């Protein structure tokens, strides 16, 4: 029985790592830009589909393809920032409007992907050996996903806490006007934020594309999961959103062990409900949400 338990926990961790990859970029952009960049999912999808194009269609070198795909994501995200969000910010748009604009942008990009690549499911074949850990099975790609999500989290933490850029970003997040008086240009900070966030989306897209295959709607599905995981942990804290994502993954997979599998998307929420009944300020409380 214990190998089943190990497999379940592993399933949860793998799912959680995938959500965390999405949630980290989403949460970074939310904490600095103060709005929900739903189109993050579309940027992710761009990374995945470009990886497919470079590696499978054009048969370029695998690692080169990864780099190019991530760069493509960064371009896509920055393009969205410059053509959609910046004009709206200049016109003093409310964050609710930015959210709807983001959803429109996602609709646009998803339709473009459908147009360009078609509706069938595509896969990126890789040699993917399976390992046995405590009686549970895990593949190389899954190990990479878990590893990469941890490394990225560490890098992000370092960026935010120890670098000048990170400090400037936090300054803008705390108070845009005050930051401006100290000579920080908020628009430049937003650009950097989108570049970093979209870098995360690109990495997520490549890894998830390899792990879960590609389909035009993948951005939407993952955005919802990432958004959920991020809020569970704490939307404006990147470590929190990563933690929340892992919790979501674990709860979903362990939950449907005991309940009919049809309830998978509801279980995490039921537990969340019960949790929030006792702790309405959330998982990490108010202090972490300020971080």
């Amino acid at each position, binding site marked *: 029985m214990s190998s089943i338990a190990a497999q379940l926990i592993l399933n949860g961790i793998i799912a959680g790592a995938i959500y965390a990859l999405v949630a980290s970029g989403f949460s970074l952009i939310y904490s600095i830009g103060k709005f929900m960049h739903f189109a993050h999912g579309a940027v992710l999808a761009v990374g995945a589909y470009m990886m497919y194009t470079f590696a499978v269609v054009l048969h370029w070198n695998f690692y080169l393809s990864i780099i190019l795909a991530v760069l493509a994501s960064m371009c896509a995200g920055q393009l969205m920032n410059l053509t959609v969000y910046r004009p709206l910010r200049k016109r*003093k748009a409310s964050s609710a409007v930015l*959210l709807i604009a983001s959803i429109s942008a996602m609709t646009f990009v998803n339709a473009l992907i459908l147009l360009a690549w078609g509706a069938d499911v595509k896969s990126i074949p890789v040699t993917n050996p399976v390992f046995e850990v405590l009686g549970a099975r895990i593949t190389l790609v899954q190990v990479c996903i878990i590893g990469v999500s941890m490394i990225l989290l560490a890098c992000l933490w370092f960026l935010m806490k120890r670098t000048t850029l990170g400090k400037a970003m936090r300054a803008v997040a705390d108070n845009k006007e005050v930051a401006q008086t100290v000579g920080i240009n908020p628009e430049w900070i937003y650009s950097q934020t989108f570049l970093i966030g979209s870098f995360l989306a690109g990495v997520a897209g490549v890894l998830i594309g390899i792990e879960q295959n590609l389909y035009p709607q993948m951005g939407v599905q993952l955005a*919802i999961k990432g958004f959920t995981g991020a809020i569970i942990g704490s939307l404006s804290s990147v470590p929190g959103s990563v933690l929340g994502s892992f919790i979501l993954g674990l709860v979903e997979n362990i939950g449907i062990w005991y309940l009919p599998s049809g309830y998978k998307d509801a279980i995490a929420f039921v537990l969340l409900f019960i949790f929030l009944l006792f702790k309405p300020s959330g998982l990490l409380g108010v202090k972490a949400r300020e971080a």
Partner: protein
Amino acid sequence: MAFINYLIHLGILIGIYTILVVSLNFAVGFTGLLNLGHVGFFGIGAYVSALLAVSGVPLWLAILGGVIAAGIAGVILAIPTARLKGDYLALATLGFTFIMGSVARNWTDVTRGALGIPGIPRLAADNVVVLAIVGVLAVISCFIFRRVGQSRFGRACQALRDDELAAKMLGKNTFAHKIGAMGLSAAFAGLGGALFAHYITFIDPSIFGFGDLILLFSALIVGGLASVRGSWVGTVVLLLLPEPLRFIGFPSSVLGPAREMIFALLLLLILLYRPKGLFGEVDLS
């Protein structure tokens, strides 16, 4: 000309969705509750009304049943969520929608699961009559929400939206106000759901989908928060915007995505033109 039938159909949809958006506006725009559970109430209204009607309950009693069920659900949801802030409220209410969807999909003994409920009795045999019914109800809903918005209750809700702490200190029972707002909002969502069920005459668990949530919020925000006029205008815009696109003859290989792209671009242009929504009064952060 049969073209008028098509317009009547669009009018009916606009009427139903107006009821949904104007009630959502009361919870979100007036009271500041980031309520993502609206689609859940919509679905409850639809399912309860449909199930009652299909088992022989007279039509308008069934619809009333749907409204009451949704209203009660709104009150029940408001109680634990009243203490939650911003994103957690959003998440909890979103969870409610997902949970309702899951129940609809899996409680097959009652809801027939993915097979759905076909053969729901119509509001009326003639679509013109349906349009009249739905139109009247939509106008009444807008009227009610405008009056409630201007009432003492409504102004207290707006106060608590702007500064909950201050409202509490002024002695307002913010808890009761939140429950009232949610309950009222949910009841009308249930009405919209029941009308939807009795118009389309077939519902299935996909009614609890994310797509409708996006449509409702888009209409709400494009129209403008805390404005009843904004709600129905936003609904008209969001529902009518894709229709002229049907007449652009794209080749079949690009038809679907091309129209979606144009729709998305048009929406973005509208937002650029009116960054606070067409009649927007407030900003929610």
